[in-house]
């Protein structure tokens, strides 16, 4: 590879960004088709919005009003053109824009997920590095056995056990809700109050457990591979300290798969924290999704799924950028 000049670099970067944006658009288009079709096959939403004793004429009218009398293709066309204009439809139940409903609850989910994934990463990476660098130590074997437990235990069970011990038996932490919130930059947040923290800790731990175990195992596998490399030996021959060799030379080389999994887990937690949110009555988007599915509130479900797809695509994009920052051999193309 030649040494790129600064302007060449910027041209490459812009080209890359355009390419990625087009890819994102394509993915979102595909998701919109799938979501739309799926929704069309899951029952007639008209019965969700009309009174139970409506006449056939009233049903017909409601159907026309909702645009459900048109062909599938024209319904899709209306759906997409509205999407592009920023109109994501209104909830049948709340008669509010579906997007507003979700955005209102998104901060709750995101703050819980961020606490969970930070917790998981801060614990998992050092343990993974240790276990990978000393695979034969009894402590490492203990860590690995523990991680297996973390993967195997179902979240709902862990959540209930935590509630049982910390909320019921020792009455140490609250079992439900967000606690006290404060307004910050227009968002309602729990993590800025002590009471909020006491509420967030149990759901975050529940959510963190599986992610912690996965990140730990990936980190360990990467480190085991890296520690065999010559440059690790060369670093030792230079007189570098053990700490510096592990975290300076070793970890950065083991990080690519860790970042990949981190991104996937982050998206997964944001989109599907449903069970944990239900157990802890955490008023986030996951709970909204479940409620909307029960109520057949189609616009909310659709927007939720579109948003989820967008979050995944966006996270993957960021992850790809992070790759190039970690490993200079990976270039943006």
């Amino acid at each position, binding site marked *: 590879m030649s040494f790129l000049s600064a302007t060449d670099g910027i041209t490459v970067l812009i080209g890359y960004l355009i390419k990625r944006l087009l890819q994102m658009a394509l993915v979102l288009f595909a998701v919109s088709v799938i979501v739309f079709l799926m929704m069309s096959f899951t029952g007639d939403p008209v019965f969700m919005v009309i009174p139970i004793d409506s006449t056939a004429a009233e049903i017909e009218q409601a159907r026309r009003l909702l645009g459900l009398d048109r062909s599938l293709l024209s319904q899709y066309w209306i759906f997409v053109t509205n999407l592009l204009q920023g109109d994501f439809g209104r909830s049948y139940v709340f008669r509010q824009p579906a997007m507003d409903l979700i955005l209102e609850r998104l901060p709750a989910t995101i703050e819980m997920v961020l606490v969970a994934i930070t917790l998981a990463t801060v614990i998992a990476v050092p343990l993974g590095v240790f276990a990978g660098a000393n695979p034969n130590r009894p402590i490492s074997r203990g860590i690995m056995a523990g991680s297996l437990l973390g993967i195997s235990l179902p979240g709902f069970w862990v959540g209930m056990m935590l509630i049982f011990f910390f909320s019921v038996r020792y009455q140490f932490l609250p079992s439900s809700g967000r606690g006290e919130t404060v307004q910050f930059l227009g968002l309602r947040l729990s993590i800025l109050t002590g009471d909020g923290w006491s509420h967030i800790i149990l759901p975050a731990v529940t959510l963190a457990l599986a992610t912690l175990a996965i990140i730990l195992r990936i980190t360990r596998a990467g480190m085991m591979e890296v520690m065999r490399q010559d440059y690790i030996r*060369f670093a030792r021959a230079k007189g570098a300290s053990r700490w510096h060799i592990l975290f300076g030379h070793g970890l950065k080389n083991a990080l690519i798969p860790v970042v990949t999994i981190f991104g996937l887990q982050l998206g997964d937690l944001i989109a599907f924290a449903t069970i944990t949110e239900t157990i802890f009555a955490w008023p986030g988007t996951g709970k909204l999704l479940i409620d909307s599915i029960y109520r057949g509130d189609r616009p909310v479900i659709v927007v939720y799924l579109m948003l989820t797809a967008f979050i995944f695509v966006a996270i993957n994009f960021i992850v790809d950028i992070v790759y190039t920052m970690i490993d200079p051999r990976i270039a943006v193309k």
Partner: protein
Amino acid sequence: MSETLLDIRGLKTHFHTFSGLVKAVDGVSFDVRKGEVVGLVGESGGGKSVIGFSILRLIEPPGRIEAGEILFDGEDLTKKSEVEIRAVRGGEIAMVFQDPMTSLNPVYTIGRQMDEMLQLHTELAEPARRARCIRMLEDVGISEAESRLNAYPHQFSGGMRQRVVIAIALLAGSRLIIADEPTTALDVTVQSQILKLMRRQISERGAAMILVTHDLAVVSEMADRIVVLYCGRVVERGRTEDVIAHPAHPYTRGLLDSIPRITDRQHRLRQIPGTVPDIRELGSGCSFRERCFRAQPLCAEKTPELAPVRQTLDAACHFPLEETKA
């Protein structure tokens, strides 16, 4: 005769593997004097590299230094604590590895990897360290050194990378360089450049070098003295001229004979019959006896000790070869 820098006495490094005890280095003794190049020669699996790693205490489990002394400037390296030995690594004794493609960390710039060495072993401030790195790169023949500091290893060719590795090894002013097959992974044309470079740079700095290689041709050009290893033991050691011209041990003779010569009229390459025995199953007696054309019953009964055969040459053989008149 100049002062002794490194004195290895009775070094034993064994590996306790699942399939048995491997005595990779089994009672090796030799010394290195200041400013001298000593060649460690032998076939693969002869324990050459393990000696290098033992000196810097880079042997990892299941390997262990079982016995012996490694005196560097009179201090026994085997008795030093981990923190003390870290100051020696890279500081007093530096190492160059076989494969330049893998000995540099792919995710850091050349400059950063050079700077690490100076941060670890000098008190220099950043500008001074940077200046020293640039000069060092120029010394090992890398042009546009300043901009290369920001380059990553994958942007360099194999020969260039090995130059960088050598630059890093020389950077902190080590008095002993252990070069483990430094040119084996390189093109033949690059090999001789790198060897010349190492020799010049090392002698300019008054440092000594242990050159680990299987290539007798390389050693004969570079080394002042040669130590020949077979199955973890020294079978012959002496001044390069003597060992090359008049080897006393049949194994050395065999190694020398297997170098192809352009003047040779023979069509087949000569080789040593047989293969290196399984190092886990060595009993008593000379471990070379089964491949040796001079083997006698005595060779199976008694392990030959290293003893002076001539004034400047020791060999571990019951029936050493006579000095041949050229």
